[in-house]
Structure formats: C-alpha cells, structure tokens
C-alpha cells in the first residue's frame, strides 16, 4: 500500500525550533513504518504564504496536515477546504480557530507557560524589580495568549512590575534594537522576558553589547542551541522551552491516529501519542503535551547539541 503522507506545516522554514520538530516527526514516521513526512512551510512567516502551501498540499491529496499557524483566523477557510476534501487537519504549537482544525496540540498548557515566564524572571529578583516584555509580532497567537496568562498571575509576584511590552517581529535586528531601546528608556530595568526564540537571543546579545550582563537578566522561551552562548556569558541565567522534538513527534502521532485509525477528536477524548502518552482534549478540542522545561548552566551542555 502507499505510504500515509502527513504534512508538517511550519510557520517558516529554517527556524531551528521547527527543524527539531521535524526530527521528532521523522522519528514518529519511522516508528509507524508506513508514514512519509512532508516537511514544508512558507519562507517567511505570513498567512498568505501558508495558504499557498496548504493549497498545494490539498492538491497532492495528502492524508493529514499538522500545522503551526501564522494566523489564527486567516488559515481557517483554506483548512476547512482541506477537511472538506477528506484531509485530517490538526494544529500544534501555534493554533488555528476551532472550526479550522480537528484538534489543537499545545506544547504545554498556556497557564503553565504564562506562569513560567514570569517565574523565571522573579526567581532571580527576590526583592522585586522592573521587567519588560520583548514579544514576537503583534499578531503572534501564542505569545499573546501567554502574556495574557502571565498577567493573570502577576499578583502572585509582588514587587515585580512589567514596565513595557515591545515587539521585535521575530526579526533579529528589530528585536535587538527594541531590547536596546528598553535598556535606554528604563535604566533600572532588571529583566527582559522574551517568550520567543528569536527575541531572547537578540535580547541577550543586546545586553552583552550594552555591558549590562549581571544587571539585566534575559529570560523567556528559547532553544538551548541558540541560548548556549547567552547562558555562558551570564546574560541569561535560565530560560525554558518544551521539547520541540517531542512536539513534532506527538503531532505526527495524533495526525496518524485521526486519519488512519478512525479516532474522533471530541471534548474529553483521550488520544494516544506513542511514547508521549495520551492527549486529553478539553472543550475546545485542545490538549497540552507537557510542562515546559527549564534550562540553565547546569544542564545546557546536555541539550545544546540536540536542538
């Protein structure tokens, strides 16, 4: 029989995080035996680019699409069409609106992440202090949700004050400039929280260049391979991320279950995802994979060559 073709659609090609997810997907494919992974995505992080990719995938009549989306709403019509043509659609990492997918796999639960990013900063500021947020684009779905969740728990971190939120658009130079701007505007800044792998690296570089290592702690979500230098220089004391390999692996497993084993995605359902256990869906057909994992000087060397 022909291979089962599962398309892993990412926000943009060439981002380390997604490359790692692809590794996980390949691992799942090997485990399942008859699966071919089509790893694809636009070359820049736009919804229009993803729609063209989706159209091409629909045309190829792939069996399943697992997508990390650039836009919650804009992809819905295209993905709906995919489902009408009998293609299984799930989203992972960065979700699409419920009507555009069968289920959504969160890397972790949003409240956990929201709490984690502020906790990472607060842990190093026992006496409180000023922190600023350096996010991705203004339209990034998950960053916005995490920041919202973070705001909900702010009360538990007395003395920590969020002084500003800026956007680096997931561009290294813009993030760098925004980080530099933050340090100039708020000379007493104690930490920069960047819940994005591009922003956190740029912010760490900006802190090093401004000679503020030790004064400003950069934390947030990043990849060990990219953050190894920042941990070493001390610009970042710790950061968190979930394991993208596991994420790609789980997404592939879920897509396979839905498309080949007749599993229905419905609230409350428990869907197996190989070595990662099972995903429990909530009322929105969403589920969380695992807790984010914290990296610091003690463990970074074990992970920096993996992803």
């Amino acid at each position, binding site marked *: 029989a022909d291979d089962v073709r599962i398309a892993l659609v990412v926000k943009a*090609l*060439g981002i380390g995080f997604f490359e790692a997810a692809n590794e996980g997907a390949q691992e799942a494919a090997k485990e399942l035996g008859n699966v071919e992974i089509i790893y694809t995505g636009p070359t820049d992080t736009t919804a229009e680019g993803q729609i063209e990719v989706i159209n091409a995938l629909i045309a190829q009549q792939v069996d399943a699409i697992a997508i990390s989306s650039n836009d919650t709403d804009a992809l819905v019509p295209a993905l709906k069409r995919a489902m009408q043509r009998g293609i299984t659609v799930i989203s992972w990492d960065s979700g699409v609106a419920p009507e555009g997918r069968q289920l959504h796999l969160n890397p972790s639960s949003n409240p956990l992440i929201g709490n984690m990013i502020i906790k990472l900063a607060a842990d190093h500021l026992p006496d409180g202090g000023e922190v600023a947020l350096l996010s991705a684009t203004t339209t990034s779905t998950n960053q916005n949700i995490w920041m919202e969740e973070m705001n909900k728990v702010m009360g538990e971190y007395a003395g920590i004050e969020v002084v500003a939120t*800026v*956007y680096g658009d997931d561009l*290294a130079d813009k993030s*760098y*400039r925004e980080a530099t701007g933050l340090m100039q505007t708020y000379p007493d800044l104690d930490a920069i929280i960047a819940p994005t792998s591009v922003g956190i690296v740029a912010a760490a570089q900006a802190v090093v260049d401004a000679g503020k290592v030790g004064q400003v702690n950069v934390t947030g979500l990043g990849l060990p*391979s990219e953050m190894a230098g920042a941990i070493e220089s001390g610009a970042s004391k710790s950061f968190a991320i979930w394991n993208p390999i596991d994420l790609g692996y789980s997404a592939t497993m879920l897509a396979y279950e839905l498309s080949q084993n007749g599993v229905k995605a419905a609230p409350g359902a428990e869907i197996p995802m190989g070595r990662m256990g099972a995903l429990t869906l909530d009322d929105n057909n969403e589920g969380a994979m695992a807790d984010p994992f914290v990296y610091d000087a003690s463990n970074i060397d074990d992970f920096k060559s993996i992803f």
Partner: protein
Amino acid sequence: MKRYIPLREAILGAAILTLTLLVASRFPGFIAPSNLANVFNDTAPLIILALGQMVVILTRCIDLSVAANLALTGMAVAMINVALPGLPIPVILTIAVLMGAFMGAINGLLVWKLSIPPIVVTLGTMTIFRGIIFLISDGKWVNSHEMSPAFTGFPRTVLLGLPVLSWVAILTVIVFGIMMARTQSGRSIFAVGGNPHAAVYTGIDVGKTQFWAFVASGALAGLTGYLWVARYAVAYVDIAGGFELEVVAACVIGGISIAGGIGTVGGAVLGAIFLGIVKNALPVVDISPFWQLAISGSAILIAVAFNARSGRNKGRVILKSAEATQ
C-alpha cells in the same frame, strides 16, 4: 540663484536637530553622548548602504537588490566562519566586499551590456539572491555560538570611543565625499545622471559608469553584510528584509533626485541619520513602534514635496521688470 543645495541640507540638518531636541526635552538621556553614539552606530549600516545607493541613483539607476545582497553575503561569510573559524577577519572582510561587488557586477552587466532597465534587473536579482541564501543555508540559521568570537567581535571593538562599525561608516563617508567631489569618476557619475547624452559626447561611457556604480553599491552591501551578521550575531534568510526601501528612502529624504544627477554625500548621510533617529527615538519617547512606518512614510512625502518646491521654477526670466524683482 540655484545654490539651494546647501540650504536643503541645512534644513534637513535643522529638522534632525529639532527632532533630537524634542526627544531630549522629554528624555534627556537621549542626547547623552553615549546614547547618540549608540544611535549613530545603529544607523551605520543604513549610512553605508545609502551611500552606495546614492551613487547608483545619481547615474539614473536604482538598486533594489542591496538588502538581498547584504543577506547573501552575510550568510556566506557566516557559513565560511563556521567552516573555517580560524580565518582572519581581514580575509573575511575581503571576501565580503568581493562577493558583494560580484553581485553588484551582475546587476551592472545586465544594465550595461543588455540595457535592461535597472528596476527590472534588481527586482529579479533581489529575489534570486534571497533564494540562493535559502539554497546554500537550507533555510537554517547560523547562530551566535557557532560564530567565532573574533568574527562577532570585530564590529563592536571600541576604538577611540566608537565601535568599529561606526568607524567603517565614517570612513565610507570620507572616501565617498572625496570621490564624488574631487575625482574624475565622481564627476562622471554626476555627468552620466545629469545628461547621459552629453556624457557620451564628453567621452564618458554611460553604461560603464553605471556598471561601476552597481559594483560600488554591491561592494558596500557586501561589506555591510558581514558587519550586520557579526553585529547581530545571527544569519538567516530574511535578515534585512525590505531594507532596500529604507535605503532608497534615506536617499530620497536626503534630496537625491530619483531622476539622477542631483544629490550630495551629505544629503544621503543626513537622510539616513534622520531615519535612524526616528527609529531610535520612538521606543524612547514611548510612541508605539507601530507609528514608525507611518512617520517615515510621511517624512518621505514631505521631503520630496519640499525638494521639488525648491527645485521648481528656475525657468528663464524674460521680462526686464520681473528680473528686477527677483
């Protein structure tokens, strides 16, 4: 009657000064010398590229491929650095300049030998260069920890209080200043843009001059490519995406006429600095960064409208009575 050129620059300079003082009135820290040095350093790549673009625009061409050239060179030298971490920086610099110049030469040759309009050529090479970055890098990033400390350290090494990046920009300004004002090639560039037909009669090869303009712009883009990647310590496909328009905007704001032949080094530099200040001031004065795009757009419109006004109506005056009142 038509000595407007210094006036135009004086006005732009005044605008920059006013802007700076306005920001400083709310945030005195902005005009601290260290911060101004920072702003200048931040603007250095734009200044360097604007000078290259200026030369191209003066010859009645336009180079939309500078940002893609920058990104490709940046990626290439980053990958070279990863592969051969021991390669000394002068060698890297040479490679960057030569690579950039080579890409500029491709543009130049298509314009010179095949007479394809520059906007078409560079629109094409812009996408081709970006595509090639994707091909050679496989879309992957080169991250700071993969680069050698010497590689990332060079542009930020501080000499006499300023980082090398700033010094490179200053040096470029001086070299171009002398070249445009006091050398045969500089004058040829003005001549070719001012009146290509007459240039031929004067023994200046129009196509060849345009070719060299593209080479110069390419070489500067290559140089900036290395500096950019080293400064931000990261290389990926999309770096400096859309930067070509910012470069053109800097030239336009600086009074470089898109029709060729008119413009000065000072204008291009001031245009770049103006944009640099706007960009750096917005986060400081707490205007949402979302305003930046609209502000630079308006600046361009005001600048061209103003430049056109001052250049307008230098027709002859026939009436003796009118001449007296001039």
